[in-house]
């Protein structure tokens, strides 16, 4: 048996059945394109989220108001607030901290003479900049002096600047927060992220100014100032667990909680956040993958349909080829080459089409899709396998018939 010869036979047979060949290719193209596009979008979303979290800073630990849910834990449940004093205690007692920044944030009306919008206004300390991995684009950040003097100064994010000043230089201009005038002293460099809590939409003031003029009684509990949260950056990754443990001890002693009492705060590391976020995006990828798998299956069924429809004629063809002396392996080889050609052709076109769709999605800014090699490989091989199975199996069945039976097949 001569390989080139059989390839030639297969190509001749493909050409003799142009319509059927094209329909089979189309089925594979649709399946592969769907898989590549959907999986790329899933991958893109995953790495998007990861990048966003990582851009927040490194080795971060956040402490926030609110109970972490811990089933099975007994003990008294007491509601208590995160206090400014807690921040001072942590700063004093916990080692290995690179930067620590307490903050209080509240949704507040912010206006210029021409515009009024609601922003979450953050009262904090100078350390906020470094801990959150932010940079100042123009002007300066708040200083300790600003804080001690309760200066009415504000640093704004890029989006806020665009919103309120529409391209004018905001430095030295006045904005009103809750009808109190503030001078804009700096604008943060854009991080390219958007949404609630993003640096680009922040409005930052000294925390004491906030307590004194903006946040009001909401920020006071039992005569002491409260916090929305504390962000800590550890000196190194290795300290994170120790710091988290020590922070918990400090908080317990501050709030007079026993070891078995429910801690009213959530202490979490960036790593935990990353892993839970990537859990979410993995789930999403899995769903997209499932949809993609279904479309591949649909494509496969399309291929099967076309093969089955043509099986009558092809069975006669197989009968004839056997009658003129073709051994079974020559017939199988012919069909193998035929379906391989179709599967590879369909696979290549499908990969190109799917990548194109993913690129268009990215280009339109809908989602940043990532076309990766493993996605291409996965969709390509699965389509090839489906194509092979549905192409070869009926041919194999037919090649086992006696020539006369195959010739009479209806």
């Amino acid at each position, binding site marked *: 048996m001569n390989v080139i010869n059989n390839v030639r036979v297969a190509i001749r047979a493909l050409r*003799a059945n142009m319509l059927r060949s094209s329909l089979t290719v189309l089925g594979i193209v649709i399946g592969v394109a769907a898989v590549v596009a959907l999986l790329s979008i899933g991958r893109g979303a995953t790495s998007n989220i990861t990048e966003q979290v990582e851009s927040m800073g490194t080795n971060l630990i956040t402490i926030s108001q609110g109970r972490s849910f811990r089933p099975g834990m007994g003990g008294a449940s007491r509601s208590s607030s995160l206090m400014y004093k807690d921040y001072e205690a942590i700063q004093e007692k916990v080692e290995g901290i690179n930067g620590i920044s307490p903050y209080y944030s509240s949704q507040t009306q912010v206006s210029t003479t021409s515009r009024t919008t609601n922003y979450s206004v953050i009262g904090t300390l100078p350390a906020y900049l470094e801990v959150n991995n932010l940079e100042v684009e123009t002007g300066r950040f708040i200083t300790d002096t600003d804080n001690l003097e309760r200066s009415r100064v504000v640093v704004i994010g890029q989006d806020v600047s665009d919103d309120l000043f529409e391209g004018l230089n905001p430095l030295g201009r006045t904005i009103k927060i809750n009808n109190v005038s503030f001078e804009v002293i700096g604008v943060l460099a854009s991080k390219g992220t958007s949404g609630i809590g993003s640096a680009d939409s922040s409005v930052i003031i000294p925390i004491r100014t906030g307590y004194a003029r903006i946040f009001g009684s909401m920020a006071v509990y039992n005569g002491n100032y409260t916090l929305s949260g504390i962000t800590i950056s550890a000196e190194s990754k290795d300290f994170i667990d120790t710091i988290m443990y020590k922070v918990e001890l400090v908080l317990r002693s501050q709030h007079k909680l026993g070891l078995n009492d429910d801690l009213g705060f959530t202490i979490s590391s960036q790593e935990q956040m990353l892993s839970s976020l990537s859990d979410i995006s993995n789930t999403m990828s899995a769903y997209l993958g499932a949809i993609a798998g279904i479309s591949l299956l649909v494509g496969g069924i399309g291929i099967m349909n076309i093969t089955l429809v043509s099986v009558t004629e092809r069975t006669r063809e197989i009968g004839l080829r056997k009658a003129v002396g*073709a051994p*079974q392996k020559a017939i199988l080889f012919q069909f193998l080459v035929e379906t391989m050609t179709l599967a590879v052709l369909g696979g290549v076109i499908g990969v190109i089409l799917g990548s194109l769709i993913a690129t268009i999605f990215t280009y339109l800014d809908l989602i940043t899709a990532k076309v990766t090699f493993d996605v291409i490989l996965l969709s390509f091989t699965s389509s090839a396998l489906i194509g092979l199975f549905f192409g070869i199996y009926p041919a194999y069945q037919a090649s086992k018939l006696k*020539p006369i039976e195959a010739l009479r097949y209806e």
Partner: protein
Amino acid sequence: MIEVKNVTKIYKVGDSEVHALDGVSLKIRDGEMVAIMGPSGSGKSTLMAILGCLDTPTSGDYLIDDKDTSKMKEDQLAHLRAHKVGFVFQQFNLLPRTSALENVMLPLTYDGTKAKERVERAKKALELVGLSDRLHHHPNQLSGGQQQRVAIARALVNEPSILLADEPTGNLDSKNGDEIMAIFQQLHREKHQTVVYVTHDMFIARHTERIIFLMDGKIVRDEAVKNPIKAGTKRPDEVLVNGNHNNNHKIIEVLQ
């Protein structure tokens, strides 16, 4: 030599059985030219399929050159079909959407002929059956008679030592039928090929040396032709006037 020993072929259709062949035994020597006749449904095509190794008998043996085909593996049978046997089907069985030339080349694909040689030989075979001007026509662009001649060319192309033809002249007028007979007689005479064909036409049948009559799956008569007709001989007027088919039945009745 080919030898059929007490062969039966039973088709099961639902609950009933059709005995298409019912204890057929016969020997055909190398280089013999034989016609098989018999009414429709008597089992001629069934017998031809077994002779061509396209089908296997329900019981009995079929030997080619003293080798029992029932003991052969599928690949050995394929080898026989590729090298030893040429077959003309009653229904032509040409590949659709494929040119006459490529149809005729098909057997050469599987018998080890070199690619270059195939085209030449296929062209020669088509020339022999008078279709040099239809090389690139697809079957649906050919008349019934032309399709039949493509099928004959395909059976001839690998110069099989046994040529089996199931009603090779059924769709041809007397002139074309005569040309086919000339080809068959030439192969028989010059290349000593064994030629076996089925026909309903006594005049065509008498171009051979021996006629076998089948009836209800049994051989009812097997006799030598005294003066084989030479291809090119004019058909006697009465046969032409009466038409082939009716006449055959008369002949068969007479023979019985």
